[in-house]
């Protein structure tokens, strides 16, 4: 009898703790939505920031964030795809396969600030790209590469064995297998990975902090050697100012916009991943 009582207690405790965790995140969302919601209106999306962020909107910041993440994904995707195919299709030695896999996972763990610093040293100084959109794109591309690659790799590995057996029976070459079986069937994996990579790039601040962005005076870049304003760094600067309530509201507003952007990308990726698993369950 007491045991049943104890168990109910423990279970209630577990549920309570889970509920508390959910509550924390509900609080996080509510806080951002309430504090940032007031700043959102058409002008916030269409106007440029004025008075050091106290007035106007975040038009160029949004464009900058989009430019950086799209550039990074466009550059990171072919590299990630090649990495995934190389590992799954072109390497046969299991030891090498394991090693490469661990390398990708390790790369995924590298603190982003290090990508920023070393990336700036290499691309910005050694290759002469300076503080620019280009440097930011290159750094972010490397940063999101493992995110995309892991996703693609998982999709390829989820490919049912029969497909390959059938291909073997038909005597297809590796290239033919890749072109007619692997690529078409892991399309959802590619899309999912790219979306997650975009989300990761959009949420990143430390790596682009002093390598790619500008606080004031920058608009839509005319060349790749121009720095861009971004939502992330804009929030960082505004967050350190606490006296002007308009500035603070705009910081939260920009945070809300960024959060919505990242959430929609991840939500989309979840939808595509759902498609992926459905395909193989059929």
């Amino acid at each position, binding site marked *: 009898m007491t045991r049943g009582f104890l168990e109910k207690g423990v279970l209630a405790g577990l549920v309570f703790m889970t509920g508390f965790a959910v509550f924390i995140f509900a609080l996080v969302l509510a806080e951002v939505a309430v504090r940032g919601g007031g700043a959102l209106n058409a002008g916030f999306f269409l106007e440029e920031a004025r008075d050091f962020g106290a007035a106007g909107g975040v038009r160029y910041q949004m464009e900058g964030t989009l430019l950086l993440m799209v550039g990074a994904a466009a550059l990171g995707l072919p590299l990630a795809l090649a990495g995934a195919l190389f590992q799954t299709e072109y390497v046969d030695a299991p030891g090498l396969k394991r090693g490469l896999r661990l390398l990708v996972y390790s790369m995924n763990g590298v603190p982003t600030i290090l990508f920023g610093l070393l990336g700036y040293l290499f691309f910005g100084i050694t290759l002469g790209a*300076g503080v620019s959109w280009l440097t930011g794109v290159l750094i972010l591309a490397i940063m999101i590469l493992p995110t995309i690659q892991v996703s693609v790799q998982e999709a390829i590995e989820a490919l049912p064995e029969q497909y390959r057996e059938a291909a073997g029976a038909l005597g297809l070459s590796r290239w033919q297998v890749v072109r007619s079986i692997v690529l078409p069937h892991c399309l959802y994996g590619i899309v999912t990975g790219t979306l997650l990579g975009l989300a990761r790039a959009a949420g990143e601040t430390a790596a682009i902090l002093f390598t790619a962005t500008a606080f004031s005076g920058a608009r839509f870049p005319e060349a790749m050697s121009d720095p861009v304003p971004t939502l992330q760094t804009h929030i960082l600067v505004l967050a350190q100012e606490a006296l002007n309530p308009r500035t603070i509201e705009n910081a939260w507003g920009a945070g809300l916009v960024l959060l919505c952007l990242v959430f929609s990308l991840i939500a989309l990726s979840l939808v595509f991943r759902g498609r992926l698993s459905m395909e193989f369950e059929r």
Partner: protein
Amino acid sequence: MKISGFFLAALLCHAASTQAAPAAENRLLVMGSTTVLPVASLAAEEFTRRSGREVSITINPGGSGVGVNSAATGRASIGMISREISSDEHKRFAEARLKTHVIGHDRVACVVSSEIYQAGVQSLSREEIRAIYQGTITNWKEVGGPDREIVVVDKERHRGTRHAFMRYVFGDPTARAPGARLVTGSNNEEQAKIAASDAAVGMLSTAWISDEVAGVGIREGQAVLVSNDASQIAYPIVRPLSLVTAGEPAGLAREFIEFMLAPAGQALVENFGYYPVAAADRVR
């Protein structure tokens, strides 16, 4: 894949072409001191409006140390600094032949949370400030305030405001402050942290004094010197605000610096709460 590959190729080609002309004649990146940033930023807008050409002047914060480093290493065309270039930096960047262009002057204030000011701490002597930053005075009651522990706010070592402040307080611009609790970066960050506290002391450019962050007078003998009283020319904590370039500036960089020194630029400096170059005698 194909589209991405094309994009990659395009990107690399473009990169190569932009690299050929590193400092485009209509672009300027200015980086550094957050004290100089607001006036540089306002001047950039005004300059762009008046020039009637397609120019783009981008401005980034970072602090005086970043200003020196950026100008010296070519990261930015112009660095902003709110102090002199240190002998260390002159040595380190000897090859860059750094050149400073003073665009104005500023007084640094010792500031406290408004609660402390209202509770009676309206002036501090140099010795008291030194003891607070050394950590030998830790409670406001020791300097005539309420019984409350002092939240001592320091700044990052390379910041211009800190150099001016520490030179006065300790006689050494890079003196250590073992009594410090928080270390902040920009003027905004320090102002926000002091405002958020009800027991903080810190250092700020006079232009950042507000309802929440009060400037305390500096007691020297019988006199109490207040940073935002322009008539007191003896106010002791002053520093130049400058733009710095590697070698003689040319092209757009020179035009911009000349604009900041012209009447229109100097008016912006004065309106923001700094002293124009012509008023240097008011900041000793």
